[in-house]
């Protein structure tokens, strides 16, 4: 009976472990008799994506439009709660995340709002009534919880996830600080005007100057307040400096790759060679060829995507491997290669 050495250096085989190993044998024997061995009939693929139709494109502010989407037959869409976002897959294949900013009780439409900023959003602005897009989700990376007291801090287009939250807590204790460059650039002021004005501070830089610290925006926050903050990174950073408890901000997906160079990957066990373009990660490319490959954070810190390197020069960008480990492994989500690298896969 195999077993590891004893805990206190008395025996080369631990008696209790030898006994426990027998219990595991018994478990194995039992599970061999139980169901689950036969390959079951293949399960239907359940997709997270759906096709939706653009029903309305409405200008909401300078450079901001809202887009109302629905199922082609107006059937109910998956339910969502304040804080949820959709992944929009645009005709060009570009994928962008947008917070849902409509009414969660309206099950037949989704509404998002988009500021023109970069190529993805320009494509959204070009959408017209009747166009068809694919969406994935909704998913919640900004979970909204029930607490007695809220402070919402929104900056510019960051109002989108906040708006349904504010509307959901109308009869609770809440305050909203809404920053932006100018009033003309701030969407949904009309909808906010329907709320209790004593609880709202519309704060355009044009009238109040650029906020110099998070503190300035946090005057309404008591120790027990939960602060929901969404806006430009600089604003969030300022709030984070001055608020250390009950602080919620949206968790974003990994940033796009900048300054990457193309390289090649050879999968030694499969004998295939894959090209990794400059703007994609090795993981993304490998996933297409090997759908079952493991990964999680896609930011180089969890270590679950690590693979053995059988050859080639790796440029490491992870935050998880030790120097020793780097000699034979790489985190394929962030690390890249010079020329061709060979992976044991």
């Amino acid at each position, binding site marked *: 009976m195999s077993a590891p050495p004893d805990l206190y250096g008395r025996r080369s085989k631990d008696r209790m472990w030898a006994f426990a190993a027998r219990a595991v044998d018994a478990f194995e024997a039992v599970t061999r008799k139980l169901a689950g061995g036969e390959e079951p009939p293949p399960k239907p693929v359940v997709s997270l994506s759906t096709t939706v139709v653009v029903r309305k494109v409405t200008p909401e502010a300078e450079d901001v439009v809202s887009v109302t989407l629905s199922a082609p037959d107006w059937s109910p869409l998956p339910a969502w709660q304040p804080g949820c976002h959709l992944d929009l897959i645009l005709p060009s294949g570009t994928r962008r995340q947008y917070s849902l900013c409509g009414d969660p009780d309206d099950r037949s439409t989704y509404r998002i709002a988009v500021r023109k900023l970069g190529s993805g959003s320009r494509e959204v602005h070009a959408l017209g009534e009747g166009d068809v897009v694919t969406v994935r989700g909704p998913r919640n990376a900004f979970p909204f919880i029930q607490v007695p007291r809220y402070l919402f801090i929104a900056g510019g287009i960051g109002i989108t996830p906040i708006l349904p939250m504010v509307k959901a807590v109308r009869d609770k204790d809440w305050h909203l600080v809404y920053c932006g460059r100018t009033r003309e650039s701030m969407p949904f002021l009309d909808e906010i005007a329907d709320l209790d004005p004593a609880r709202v501070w519309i704060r355009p830089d044009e009238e109040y100057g650029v906020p110099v610290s998070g503190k300035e925006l946090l005057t309404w926050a008591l120790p027990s307040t939960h602060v929901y903050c969404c806006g430009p990174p600089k604003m969030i950073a300022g709030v984070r400096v001055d608020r250390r408890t009950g602080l919620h901000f949206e968790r974003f997906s990994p940033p796009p790759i900048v300054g990457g160079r193309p390289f090649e990957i050879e999968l030694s066990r499969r004998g295939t060679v894959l090209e990794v373009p400059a703007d994609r990660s090795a993981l993304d490319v490998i996933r297409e060829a090997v759908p079952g490959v493991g990964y999680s954070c896609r930011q180089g*810190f969890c270590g679950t995507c690590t693979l053995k390197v059988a050859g080639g020069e790796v440029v490491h960008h992870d935050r998880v491997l030790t120097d020793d480990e780097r000699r034979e492994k790489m985190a394929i989500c962030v690390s890249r290669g010079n020329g061709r690298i060979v992976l044991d896969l």
Partner: protein
Amino acid sequence: MEPENLALRPRDVRFDWAALPAHWIPGEPFATHMFNVMHLLLPEGERWFVEVFKEALPLITDERLREDVVGFIGQEAMHASAHQGAQDHLLQHGIDPAPYVRQLEWFFRERLDRPDGGRRWLVARLAVIAAVEHMTAFLGHWVLNSPKLDEAGADATMLDLLRWHGAEEVEHRAVAYDLFAHVDGGFVNRVAAMAIGFPALVWLWIRGVRYLMTVDPRCKGKARWRDLVRAGRKGLLPTVPYLVASILRYFKPGYHPSQEGSTSQAVAYLASSPAALAAEQ
């Protein structure tokens, strides 16, 4: 109303143990070591979860579940590495974790490695993980509601580790069960897995706390059952009746992990956890 559709993602947490005292619940060596067993057990155990779940990934045909599993894998990997850091720190206090950890390595890497086990062995392991995740969920819920630990003056960083971990356990509590249900879901498998999983965990825990109390140069006495009862009464550990009642819920016909714990409470803790807040760059 509980938040739903959570996008599970690992958090890049870091903990600094430089100032951690040996008995980080002051004057409570037994309770301290009951928690320290986690630092011995979880790095190996949770890495094993990660490996098994990676094996199961190709079987998932539900995209939402697949996303959940991907998030779960990273969270467990971060739990393992956070507890590994605390384990490494035990040496500073003259406690050598190696003999105990070596046994676990043998168990998880050799004994449970069955390359020829096929689908059946995968299903068996998924069932065990689902059962263990039921336990981590109610323990996570317990630690999020343990004011006595604060009152006893427990080390703030260690409490943050335990509660960040507990909160993520509550956050992802349904994933292992949903995965098992997706791949197999048989009631008998579920019961058999708990029937072996729970005693195994209890046994490993008892051995772990005995070992730590024996090799800790500051501890004169041995671990005794009455210490467990006492610490439970003081609210420093879950009580035995709480554990038994929680385990039994797993056998209820309509069981689903979403009935355990509260997502809102986990989200609220993560919004105040120093480690979780610092993790978002």
